[in-house]
């Protein structure tokens, strides 16, 4: 699957005069809405969507500033705005009830949606929520120095230019971090890089990093949203994730915030690409579907 193929599969929906790229597949009655992670795009899910589409109608969009969606200069990519965009999109597609699956950056958006749902502000029915690698306990989050610099509003814009990573460097980094051979196939990384690099994506990357500040500011709102949730929320964690470390998950489990905590073994932040089989099985187990996957 190349990026171009991926683009042809989806469509563009205009929301607030901005174009949002959406993949809308499958004709089953239940809808699975996916909120992707940072700083990638809906393309993360290309390996699992064909399988999931057998059981669900899949709706996955690129957040503004990511993937093929518009990257307007005038938007600072607040997570709150991203939640608004997602809700408006689902409205426009006529969804009445959804199951939400979110990853990393997307989990913050999902939690904002959950908070509003708890406060009777969303007409859409939400059946279940799956959160993967969510960084809720920031004091346990390992921020690398470069992340800290990017987070800074004043310095961020310069730092993001200085660290023009380039495709080769990213490829080397992926190889070093991932033992899995599948990830080393060139096209995966190249496509991701091209997507980020298109429409001056690199210029905007530091604005996107602003979401870490929002996670601090809305920590109570979002943690309370999980505590007060009236719908099942399930949290998945990757044990060897270098970004969202497992200690966060342990603290969460002891706090009784999550109702279920399931480990995905021996994978890193991008298990959807590295080990789609075990990942999809995990989600499916919870849907009580006994069919073998792949």
């Amino acid at each position, binding site marked *: 699957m190349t990026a171009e193929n991926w683009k042809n599969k989806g469509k563009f929906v205009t929301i607030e005069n901005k174009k949002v790229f959406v993949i809308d597949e499958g004709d089953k009655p239940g809808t699975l809405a996916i909120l992707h992670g940072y700083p990638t795009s809906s393309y993360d899910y290309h390996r699992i969507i064909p399988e999931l589409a057998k059981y669900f109608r899949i709706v996955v969009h690129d957040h503004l500033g990511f993937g093929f969606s518009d990257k307007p200069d*005038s*938007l*600072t990519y*607040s997570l*709150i705005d991203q939640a608004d965009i997602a809700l408006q999109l689902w409205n426009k597609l006529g969804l009445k009830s959804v199951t939400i699956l979110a990853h990393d950056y997307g989990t913050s958006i999902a939690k904002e949606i959950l908070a509003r749902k708890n406060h*009777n*502000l969303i007409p859409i029915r939400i059946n279940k929520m799956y959160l993967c690698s969510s960084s809720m306990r920031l004091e346990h989050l390992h921020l690398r120095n470069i992340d800290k610099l990017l987070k800074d509003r004043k310095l961020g814009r310069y730092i993001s230019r200085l660290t023009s990573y380039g495709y080769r460097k990213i490829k080397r980094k992926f190889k070093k971090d991932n033992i899995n051979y599948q990830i080393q196939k060139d096209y995966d990384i190249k496509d991701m890089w091209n997507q980020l690099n298109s429409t001056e994506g690199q210029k905007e990357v530091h604005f996107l990093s602003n979401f870490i*500040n929002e996670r601090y*500011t809305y920590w109570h709102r979002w943690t309370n949203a999980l505590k007060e949730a009236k719908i099942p929320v399930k949290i998945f964690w990757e044990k060897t994730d270098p970004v969202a470390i497992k200690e966060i998950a342990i603290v969460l489990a002891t706090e009784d915030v999550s109702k279920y905590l399931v480990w995905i073994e021996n994978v890193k932040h991008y298990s959807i690409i590295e080990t789609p089989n075990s990942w999809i099985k995990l989600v499916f187990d919870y849907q009580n579907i006994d069919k073998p996957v792949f």
Partner: protein
Amino acid sequence: METKEWAQKGKMVSVLNTKVFVIDEGNSEETLVLQHGYATSSIDYYKVLPELSKYYRVVIQDFVGFGFSDKPSNYYFNILQQTDVCLELWRILDLKNITLVGHNYSTQIALEVLTRQRTKLIQIEVKKVVILNSIISFDHNNLDKVSLHPLEQFSNKILLMLNSFSFYKMKIKDFFYENNSISDEEIKAKWILIEHKSGREIIDYLPSYITESKLLWRRWFNTLQVNTTPAKIISGKNDIIFNENEATRFSEEFKNSTLHFIDNCGHYPMLEKPEDFIQSIIS
């Protein structure tokens, strides 16, 4: 107005697991929602309530963390939460044809409501917005500017004020054009409401509030630029926080808005110039 007398006018309403103090007077079809500013409470509006309730159903609330309402001690009650509480309260009271009046701190809440309205994600519709002496600033964009942020100036002043009653009594007069515009009785009442439920201990969250305003500034600014709800900006001409230039700038950026100045008036038009205030709301 004694605080006891004021408390009897209203009732406590349970909204999203918190208790909110609400005064609901008048029985017109048109609703007027009056929202108070930072470090003060609904009692600011006591002078204008009797007159306005002849024309409107007037709803005045204390925000969570202020006045008689609950004051959660262990966390920062952010703008989004405040907005959610307001929207839920309006739903419970079944308000119609809302004219929303926001003073100071509640400007941000009004903008958040307008933003939700723009994205068509809420059922409640606000017909008209009135912004009173806001503390909106336009320097959020200009990151290179070194000068102290207006909100931060305000924050420093407020934190100093809240040290003790004698400080408060002295400093609150700066917010008025004429020092004798506010009586000692009124100052005392305002202070009692700040102290109520040990509110003074939790009130120092302005830094978080500033951070939040900066984070969501773009979101609100986009709303100002495409606004279709009729808006009116009323500002005391001699306000030390939000001066004439800021107000003019605000109305220029705020589409579909009109600007109205009240002469010889400071930060609290409803206390200092109640007649002018009522006139500018009704007209």
